[in-house]
């Protein structure tokens, strides 16, 4: 149930973000979800793409610093308290969220949140037991 995410170090300079998308586009890689965390000097671009290994390899080749991280994709009920219920479960289990970002899966018509946990194994053990719907990584692949 783990999903592979790649992170890219990006200096706060004009054109660097475009360079990433240019490289990915040129290799026919599709971005499924993304988030950009930024500071005044640099940003960290986190991406979920349809071909993780290929994306990592070509970005590296282009001189980017890239790392691969495992994250968890969770379906969130689209109603008040939907997210809160999930966060409460995590809180009770003492699982820390490093960061998260959301996107809408248009094909499935549902909201999905990508979570980066401090302890992914514990999260994976806890969440399904509490009835939380985890998304399989296959939905990010090109089908």
């Amino acid at each position, binding site marked *: 149930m783990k999903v592979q995410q790649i992170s890219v170090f990006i200096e706060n300079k004009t054109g660097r973000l475009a360079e990433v998308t240019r490289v990915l586009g040129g290799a026919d890689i599709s971005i499924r979800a993304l988030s950009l965390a930024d500071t005044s000097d640099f940003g*960290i671009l986190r991406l979920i793409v349809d071909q993780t290994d290929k994306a990592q390899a070509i970005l590296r080749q282009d*001189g980017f*610093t*890239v*790392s691969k991280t495992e994250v968890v994709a969770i379906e969130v009920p689209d109603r008040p308290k939907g997210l809160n219920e999930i966060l409460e479960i995590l809180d009770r289990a003492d699982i820390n969220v490093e960061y998260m970002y959301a996107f809408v899966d248009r094909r499935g018509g549902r909201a999905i949140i990508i979570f980066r946990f401090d302890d992914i194994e514990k999260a994976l053990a806890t969440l399904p037991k509490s009835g939380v719907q985890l998304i399989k990584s296959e939905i990010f692949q090109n089908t």
Partner: protein
Amino acid sequence: MIWNDDFETLPREAIEALQLKRLQQTVARVQATVPFYRQHFARAGVSADQIRSLKDLQRLPFTLKQDLRNNYPYGLFAVPLEQIVRIHASSGTTGKPTVVGYTRRDIETWSELMARSFAAAGADKGDVIHNAYGYGLFTGGLGAHYGAERIGASVIPMSGGNTKKQIMIMQDFGSTVLTCTPSYCLFLAEAAAEEGLDIRNFKLRVGIHGAEPWSEKMREEIEQKLGIKAIDIYGLSEILGPGVGIECIEAQDGLHIWEDHFIPEIINPESGEVLPHGEHGELVITTITKEGIPLIRYRTRDITRLLPEPCVCGRTHMRLERMSGRSDDMLIIRGVNVFPSQIESVLFNIEGINPHYQLVVDREGNLDTLEVQVEVNEKTFSDEIKEMQNLSRRIRKDIKDLLGVTCSVRLVEPKTLARSEGKAVRVIDKRKSLDS
């Protein structure tokens, strides 16, 4: 191996006796043949016949780089041009270069001292010496070349640049000894890795590196990345070129300075006072065999100390500690003296950081600012902002703790800092353009 056993292992008294004789001859010669020295000595109220002991050397005035510039190009030559067989010049980053001339015997001496240096680094006639120092006005290339031929090694006169070809030749020709600047050495290793080659599988076994200051940590990095022994060599064109001093492979601890040709002193760079052995200060060298352009008490601007203790290799010539910086590279940031090499050591002590850094010094209002730019790599990169901020904080804190200077840290993408094919550009001092 010791190349010239007779001279390299002379007892201390014999070295000093030889030094005194040669010093007296040199001082008398420059006083007679170089108008600059005649006036220089007269102004200091000293003359050649007053040099009766090595201690009397201290009565002579210093020679500065500016004196070479003022006498550009040939004013300090002690022989007529007909006797000069080679002319080199140092890169003049500001204004005119400094020009040095060699007689046939000077070239002979230089070859001998470079041969001693190669032997001290463990090279011999069976080696294939890949010489990636620049050939040309710069003394590095030809200096190393003549010494390599002298020991009977097969020398490949690569010169600098054209990195891909360097790697191909190094691999195909089976180079065993690499001579280049330390920063270029790492650059080569990186470039080889980019081509999918592991330079450690090449036949290289020794690297001889100099022409820019480098740290012990950088040595570890070079030795690990190239799978070689990295030897520090010292020289400067004004004095000779490469081969003024070198580490022996046995100890790799301090550079033997060839005392039968040079007299080293360490001075306080501010007061000019001569410091006792073991104390840090600026290295001053007097050449005692050079014919073309002998220099008396030349201020090298290099910061080091003299290590008079005997060395395990059996050579009796004193050692210079690895250069810790140049007195003119010294940055004064808000009143604190900082050498780029000190910052380098701090960075190298942080796990995972690579050797590519640049210092940008600027002034905001009346306050000096120091920005340390460090390249991020896959070892230091994290997908979490807080980890990256911890890295910056760690660098800032270590520099503050160890050097007492506050800086800002900018993490930059890999390979964005200028890579040198010659000497590394480590410092950009924007204050200089503000002052002029």
